[in-house]
C-alpha cells in the first residue's frame, strides 16, 4: 500500500511538471496551428536561468520568478523571430523550430558551461512527511500543489473570462474570431508567451526534482511535450492534463515494476494512441 501511494505521488509530481510543459504547447497548436519543437528550449532556459539565480541568491522563490520572466522574454523573441515568418506552413515550422531548439540548447552551454549542474530543493521544501506507512516527500507535494493550482487558474480563466473565451473560440475557428473584431495575432502572442513562461516554470521546478540539469534536456523535453500533446489531443487543454498525468504515472510505475521498459513507456503509449485514437484522448471540436 505504501509502495503504491509513493509511486502514485511520484507519478503525479512528474505528471504535473509535464503538464506545465505541455499546456502551453497544446494551446499554441490549437490557436494558430503552430507546431513548436523549440518548446523544450524554453523549458531548459527556465531551468538554467532559475538555477543560476538560485545559486547566486539562494532564494528559490526568486529563481521561480526569474525563470518565468526568462520564459516570457524568450517566448516573445521566439514568436517574433522564429514563428512569424513561417505561419501557416507546418513543414517549415517543424524544421525551423527544431533548428532553433538546437541553437537554444547550445547557447545554454555557452552561457552556463557544458557540464551538468546539481540542484537541491530549498531547505524549506526538503524532507518529508510521514503518514502511517507512507512517506511523502515535501518537494513532490509542492510540485503537485503548484501544478493543480495553475491548472485550476488557467481552467477558470479559459472558462470564465472573456479573454479565455476568446482563446477557446480561437482554437475552434480563428477566422470567425477575427471577424468579431479581435486581433488574433495579439492574442496568440500573449498565449505563446504564457505558454513559454509555463514551460520555463516547469524547467525550474524540475531541476531540484531530478537533482540535475543538463543542456540536452531541451530536446528530450521538446519531444516529451509533443508526445503528451499528441496523446491528449492536439489543442486540448484538459487533454494535456490527463495525458501528462497518464505519462507521469506510467513512468513511475514502469520504472519500479518493469525498469527495462521505462525508457520506452512514453513511446509505447503514444504508439497505442496513434494507432487506435489518432485524434488523441480529447478531441477538439471545430
Amino acid at each position: 500500500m505504501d509502495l503504491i501511494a509513493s509511486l502514485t505521488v511520484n507519478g503525479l509530481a512528474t505528471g504535473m511538471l509535464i503538464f506545465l510543459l505541455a499546456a502551453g504547447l497544446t494551446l499554441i497548436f490549437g490557436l494558430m496551428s503552430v507546431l513548436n519543437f523549440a518548446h523544450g528550449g524554453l523549458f531548459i532556459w527556465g531551468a538554467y536561468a532559475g538555477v543560476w539565480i538560485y545559486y547566486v541568491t539562494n532564494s528559490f522563490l526568486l529563481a521561480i520568478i526569474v525563470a518565468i520572466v526568462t520564459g516570457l522574454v524568450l517566448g516573445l523573441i521566439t514568436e517574433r523571430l522564429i514563428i512569424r515568418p513561417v505561419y501557416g506552413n507546418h513543414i517549415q515550422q517543424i524544421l525551423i523550430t527544431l533548428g532553433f531548439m538546437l541553437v537554444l540548447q547550445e547557447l545554454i552551454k555557452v552561457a552556463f558551461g557544458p557540464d551538468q549542474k546539481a540542484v537541491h530543493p530549498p531547505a524549506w521544501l526538503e524532507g518529508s512527511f510521514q503518514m502511517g506507512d507512507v512517506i511523502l516527500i515535501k518537494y513532490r507535494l509542492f510540485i503537485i500543489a503548484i501544478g493543480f493550482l495553475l491548472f485550476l487558474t488557467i481552467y477558470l480563466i479559459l472558462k470564465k473570462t472573456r479573454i479565455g473565451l476568446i482563446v477557446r473560440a480561437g482554437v475552434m475557428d480563428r477566422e470567425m474570431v477575427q471577424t468579431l473584431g479581435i486581433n488574433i495575432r495579439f492574442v496568440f502572442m500573449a498565449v505563446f508567451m504564457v505558454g513559454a513562461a509555463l514551460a520555463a516554470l516547469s524547467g525550474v521546478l524540475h531541476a531540484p526534482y531530478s537533482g540535475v540539469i543538463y543542456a540536452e534536456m531541451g530536446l528530450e523535453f521538446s519531444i516529451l511535450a509533443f508526445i503528451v500533446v499528441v496523446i491528449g489531443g492536439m489543442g486540448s487543454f484538459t487533454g494535456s492534463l490527463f495525458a501528462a498525468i497518464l505519462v507521469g504515472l506510467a513512468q513511475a510505475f514502469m520504472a519500479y515494476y518493469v525498469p527495462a521498459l521505462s525508457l520506452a513507456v512514453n513511446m509505447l503509449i503514444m504508439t497505442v494512441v496513434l494507432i487506435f485514437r489518432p485524434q488523441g484522448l480529447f478531441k477538439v471540436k471545430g
Partner: protein
Amino acid sequence: MIGVILKSMTKSNLIYLGVSAILLILPFILTGRSVQFMITQIFIFAIFAMSYDLLLGYTGIISFGHAMFFGIGAYTTAIFMDRFDASFGALLIAILVAVLFAAIVSFIVGILTLRLKSHFYAMLTLAFAGLFLVAAEKWRTLTKGNDGFTFKVPEFLRDSTTIYIVSLICLVLIFFGLRRMTQSPFGRVLVAIRENEERTVSLGFKVLHYKVMVSVVSGVVASFAGVLYMLSLRFVNTSVFHTDVTIDVLLMTIIGGVGTLVGPILGAALIELAHHWISGLANVHWIFERWIILYGTVYILVVIFFPLGIVGTIRSKLSGGSMQKMLSKKKAG
C-alpha cells in the same frame, strides 16, 4: 548498347558521370586512410540523405526517426557478421534481411500514419526510433548494449580503397536509380502530393499508396546506407539510433536543397566536412566548439530565406524559378 546509353544521356548526366569518374580516380591519388575514410563517410551519408530527400523533398513528409532505418541496416549487418562467419554469403543475407526488415517497418509506420496530418508521421517515426534505441540498449545478449561491439567483415572489404570504391559505386547507382524514379510518372505524382494533396486525391490518385510506397523505398535505401556504414566502420553501438543522426540527415537535406537529390549529396559533404574541420578549430575560438550554434543559425536562415537550399536556389536562379516554391506555399490548418 553503349551507344544507346550515350544517346539518352543529357548534359547534366554527363556532368554527374564526369564527377563520378574523378571521384573514382581520387583514392589512387589521395592514399591516406583517414582521408579516404572521411570521403567514404560522405558517400554513405549522401545515400542516407537522398533517402530522406525522397520523403521531405519530393513528397513533403517529415520523419523524425529516420535514424531507425539506418540503425536497422547497421545492426543487422553487425549482428550477422558477428554471429556468422564474415563471408560474402553472410553479408548478402544480412543485406537482404536489413532491407526486408526496413521495408516491413516503414510499411507499418506508413500505413498507420500517412493518412493523418504531417506531424503524426513525424511523431510515430520518432516513437519507433525511440523504441529501437531502447531495444538496442536493453537487448544486451544480441547488441551488447550501449558499449556496442566490433566485428569482422569479408576479407576483400577490409581495404579502405575498396570500401571507398564500393560506396561510391553504390552512391552513383542509387543516385541514378532514384533520379529515374523521381522523373517517372510515379515521381510526378509524389511532387503533386507535396504541392497539393487534396487536388491529387481529387484527380483520382490513391495518395496513401504512393506515400506508403515512397516511405518504403526511403526506408530501404536508408537501411542500405546503414549496411555500408557498418562495412566501413566495423563497429556498432546504439548511437546509430540516436535522434542526432536524424537531425544530421535533416540538416544535410535542407542545407543542400530539398527535392533535388544532388542537394543532399552536397549537404552530406558539407556537414561531414564541418563536423571534421570546425571541431578541429575548437582551440582557435570557443565558438567552434559550439559549432551547432553556427549550424543551427545557418539552417534557420536557410529555412526562412532559402527554403530550396543551396542546389535548389542555384537551380531556380538559373532557370528563372521553374522549381516550385514548395516550402513557401501557404498551407493553413
